[in-house]
């Protein structure tokens, strides 16, 4: 049996959900297929005992400040689901700590440009001037991006505007965070404060593109971050709800084995039970790595597309410990929402260290109750700790037999590090614990090698390279991609946006086809 749809979206992750909803909103007959029994991909939650744990989201940018306007807010409003989620503003930015340096730092910063600068000045007199310069650059970059996003075509006026207002943005595009710090003479403490979020992108500051980091910093600090009530699963449910309301069809427990490609044109999909479904266009929220290595016959893939895929490296593997604690955050002294605990201030060294799992090179840890006090029963709290691993070495020797012991060993290291860094004693309060290791991400998300960040955003595959070259080369036709592996790199907000971009491309194609008939 073979049904015909305008578009099939493979995978109900963040990108797949926005892509499918946008297609349905445009009146296209849309089928969304998901291998799991619920939507969201990484944007999900799970229940253990009396706790519901957030699976991945630390803070969401692009929504806040809730009274203001953010890009993702516009998208969710356009899709008609913004009001189905209750958004809670996160007022603290982060507390960033080093553990094993000769002189360790420990800084806690709020969100909001002025408040952030003031606090930084307290920690390091003279920081104001340096941070203002960096934020000013971040603002210029942000303005540059929205300018480019909104122009229809280049003419004398737009070129003049680019050279008058956005030249710094263009000039800076090829440089790493550290290259910009060096050029601006940014002192170390200011670097430590300004770049605290770097682990969210999984690339050290010698490699990480400045524009990439600055836009993220801008959205967290200048615009502000939020958390949805009911975990990120609420966003996933709300998007699916809206998609179905618009007439979209969603199939769960439906694993796509093959994408049907004939003459280098995508024609449909085959599910694992052999069900074949045809469509005029396919959008894959599945990882392009998996799509191009196991879902499409190699002979059907244009050479450029295979080489392009091969010229990318899989990004870091993920690891997380979820703790349900039987005391309140006040009792435990969990005074911050978001903690970054780094082995040392040298991000290159931290990255090196994260190539093995002998020590914990870094952790990004969230106490959810600090943002949403009633996210767990009264007198309890939720803490989740995330770490990442570079390269192929860590978890290479894992076996089914040693798996539980190995992941527990690493959890113990992270818990010890957390206690040591923050002074909060949490171990005796652990009522529920769940551990997600790279194997878990491979299991739930079919992540190649357990990566949680798609392709490494470094070298010639930085976000800027991706955006500049995304329309180039010979690729399978009528097959779009969205999600964290694609042009905007990883992160909640970007992956929702890639779904919109993929949908817009599909709509453009389908409408052209319609017009030519």
């Amino acid at each position: 049996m073979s049904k015909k749809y305008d578009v099939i979206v493979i995978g109900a992750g963040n990108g797949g959900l926005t892509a499918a909803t946008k297609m349905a909103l445009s009146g296209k007959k849309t089928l969304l297929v998901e291998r799991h029994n619920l939507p969201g991909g990484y944007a999900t939650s799970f229940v253990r005992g009396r706790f519901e744990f957030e699976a991945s989201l630390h803070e969401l940018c692009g929504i806040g400040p809730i009274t203001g306007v953010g890009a993702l807010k516009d998208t969710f409003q356009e899709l008609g689901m913004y009001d189905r989620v209750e958004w809670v503003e996160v007022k603290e930015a982060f507390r960033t700590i080093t553990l094993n340096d000769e002189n360790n730092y420990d800084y806690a910063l709020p969100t909001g440009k002025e408040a952030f600068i003031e606090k930084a000045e307290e920690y390091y007199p003279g920081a104001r001037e340096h941070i203002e310069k960096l934020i000013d650059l971040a603002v210029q970059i942000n303005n540059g991006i929205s300018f480019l996003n909104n122009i229809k075509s280049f003419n004398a006026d737009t070129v003049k505007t680019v050279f008058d207002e956005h030249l710094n943005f263009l000039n800076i595009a090829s440089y790493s965070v550290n290259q910009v710090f060096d050029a601006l003479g940014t002192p170390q403490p200011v670097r430590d404060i300004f770049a605290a979020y770097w682990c969210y992108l999984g690339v050290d500051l010698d490699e990480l593109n400045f524009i990439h980091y600055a836009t993220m910093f801008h959205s967290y600090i200048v615009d502000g971050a939020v958390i949805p009530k009911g975990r990120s699963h609420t966003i996933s449910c709300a998007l699916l709800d809206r998609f179905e309301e618009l007439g979209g069809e969603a199939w769960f427990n439906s694993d796509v084995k093959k994408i049907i490609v004939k003459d280098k044109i995508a024609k449909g999909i085959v599910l694992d039970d052999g069900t074949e479904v045809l469509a005029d266009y396919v959008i894959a929220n599945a990882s392009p790595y998996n799509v191009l290595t196991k879902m499409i016959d190699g002979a059907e893939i244009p050479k450029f597309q295979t080489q392009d895929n091969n010229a990318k490296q899989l990004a870091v593997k993920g690891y997380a410990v979820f703790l349900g604690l039987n005391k309140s955050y006040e009792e435990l002294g969990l005074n911050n929402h978001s903690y970054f605990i780094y082995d040392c201030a040298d991000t290159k060294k931290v990255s090196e260290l994260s190539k093995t799992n002998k020590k914990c090179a870094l952790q990004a840890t969230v106490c959810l109750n600090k943002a949403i006090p009633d996210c767990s029963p009264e007198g309890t709290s939720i803490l989740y700790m995330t770490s990442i691993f570079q390269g192929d070495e860590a978890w290479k020797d894992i076996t089914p037999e040693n798996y539980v012991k190995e992941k527990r060993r690493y959890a113990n290291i992270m818990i010890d590090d957390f206690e040591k860094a923050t002074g909060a004693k949490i171990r005796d309060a652990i009522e529920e614990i769940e551990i997600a290791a790279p194997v878990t991400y491979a299991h739930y998300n079919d992540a190649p090698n357990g990566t949680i960040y798609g392709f490494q955003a470094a070298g010639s595959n930085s976000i800027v390279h991706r955006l500049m070259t995304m329309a180039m080369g010979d690729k399978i036709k009528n097959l779009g991609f969205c999600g964290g592996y694609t042009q905007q790199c990883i992160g909640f907000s970007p992956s929702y946006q890639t779904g919109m971009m993929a949908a817009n491309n599909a709509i453009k194609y389908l409408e052209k086809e319609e017009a030519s008939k």
Partner: protein
Amino acid sequence: MKNKLIPIKSQGADFLNTVKMIPERLKDVKNASDKPAMNPEKFNVNMVSAALHPKKQTLKIKKIDVISPDVKSYYFTWVGSQPLAYFRAGQYLTFQLEIDGSIVTRAYSIASSPASALKGEYQITVKRVNDGFVSGYILDNWKLGDIVTSFAPEGTFVYESIRDAKTVMALAGGSGITPFLSMARAIDDGTECFNLTLLYGARNKDEILFKDELDAIAQRNPNFSVVYVLSDVKSKPKGCEKGFISAELIKKYAPVNEKYSIFVCGPEAMYNFLHKEIPTLGLEDKYVRFELFGVSKSTLKLDGIKPGTYKMTVINRGEETETTCNGEETILNALERAAVKVPVRCRSGECGFCRSKLVSGTIFLPETVADKRREADARFGYIHPCCTYPTSDIVIKIN
């Protein structure tokens, strides 16, 4: 407004470096291999994931121990190329069976040690439940050499050293012994490392399962001990306790001046009794864990149950089928009776595998079953059919 230029290297070089990014990327693409990259299923991480979480397991019954006509142990080995999935002592297997045109599932704790899975063996023990549809079928029909289907091991009723005390007081009743037998065996063979004190309740000595083996492990392994608690005996048998497992008995055998955890697995009556006893011990909740046992017949006495036959419309991958459900059975039961394949594991509302959308209609979720749905699932109309009863005609989307 003109922005002040911020040179990084020099103004000219900066712009040029930006322009160079495109050829830089294209050069790397050109130099990359034109052969497809490694199949992701070949990464060790993905192979371990596949080994631990096979979608289904095809098992062959290699041995049956008849303990009594109503209690049998089944030993399975693997068929085909996929070895048995490893597991944690205390986890269960969910079997999928076709009985008289229904597709049904049941979860059984694995009684063998995880180490035996590596050698190609699982053991479960099935006890006949009063008018139990599936247990009766298994006991009367499963034969040596039969091929059966299970899902991968699941469950959170396991020892976790980061969370639990070093000593676990295991309270078992009836066939609820099986997860603890697995734990005792795992302690004995070195897979697990904690102290397990088993208080095993039975009516009389004849009802004790695996007594010889439990005694032997207790004899040779200092980390395991067992006390039989017999209720239907006139006088206290030697080396046993008489009565029920009570707070007083737990205290008698628990470590003094040291924290301990309590794990409970047994029949509903035992749970009801222990729910009154255990709180008197003053332990923090984190140290008390009950294994699930699904919804029980006593649910039917609750006020929320609305007897009657209702129309049930099932949506599965866009196809609608109509069948009936009954106010005195769970929605999952009705689905299985109609031979609808539903992803199911725990049958107790916890695991969330059967999560489905209630498109229309009303339901009753018994207060005796903890609502383990995600907050957003409850808000957006999702239910766990395994512990939910219909109270009107319903439309349910399972896939």
